């Protein structure tokens, strides 16, 4: 039973993280390069554009859910399983989701990178 709870927790963390990252990346692409925007229109224009973006708030909600579900899972799950599993599965999930939803060109170079990083994170945190 505890096993199912732990993996269920990991699944919730990974899904919330991926949704949060994708929405946040989309929001910031809609806002545009903040360095350029800042130089042209000032800091308040940057803040205004970010706070006026609905994807930003949805992403923030998903990231908050991911943060608290990680906090909960770490307090009752096996830390040496939850932390590395959630982190490395999030890297893989993000590579898929970025390709599908953000139309990023996840070429062979980036796939190899995602797999290497996911493997490395699993080894380091384990």
């Amino acid at each position, binding site marked *: 039973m505890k096993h199912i709870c732990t993996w269920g927790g990991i699944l919730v963390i990974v899904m919330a993280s991926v949704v949060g990252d994708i929405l946040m990346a989309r929001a910031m692409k809609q806002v545009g*390069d903040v360095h350029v925007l800042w130089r042209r229109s000032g800091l308040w224009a940057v803040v205004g554009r970010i706070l006026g973006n609905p994807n930003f708030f949805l992403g923030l909600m998903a990231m908050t859910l991911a943060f608290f579900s990680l906090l*909960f899972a770490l307090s009752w799950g096996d830390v040496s399983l939850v932390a590395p599993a959630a982190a490395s599965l999030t*890297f893989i999930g993000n590579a898929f989701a*970025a390709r599908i939803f953000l139309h990023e060109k*996840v070429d062979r170079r980036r796939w190899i990178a995602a797999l290497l990083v996911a493997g490395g994170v*699993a*080894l380091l945190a384990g």
Partner: protein
Amino acid sequence: MTLRKYLVLAGVTVFAAAGDSMLSHGMKQTGNISLHHLQSVILAVRNPWVLIGILLLLAFFAAYMNALSWADLTYVLPATSLGYVLLALVARFVLHEQVSPLRWLGIALISGGVGFVAGGPALTSHAHHDSIPEHEMRDSAIAVSGGKS
């Protein structure tokens, strides 16, 4: 890629690593949180380590959003993973802790992965940011300054 952009990516790396370690240090002091005692989350926030960790994670968040505005998600993410490498190096050379061969392998894998991504372009998706419509920028600037006065 300008120096400023590399500094933003460095900020993403360092703030994430420092924030995570402060938070985990603090959470070990506060102990278990269960669904039946939600108020223990509030207690956890009153721990100074947790508080510093949250502040550092906010700084991470600002740097992360900055990076996402001019680079792909799949380009920025490996930068955050360099933080794990940083933590392991600090553990070995500053805290003089034992780092197992498996962990060194993990460090090598992450570094290799980051090297792969860093060699490629930062942005491959539609370049929205190159073409922020002028009128839209002016509108948002007016809306913000108008809201203030």
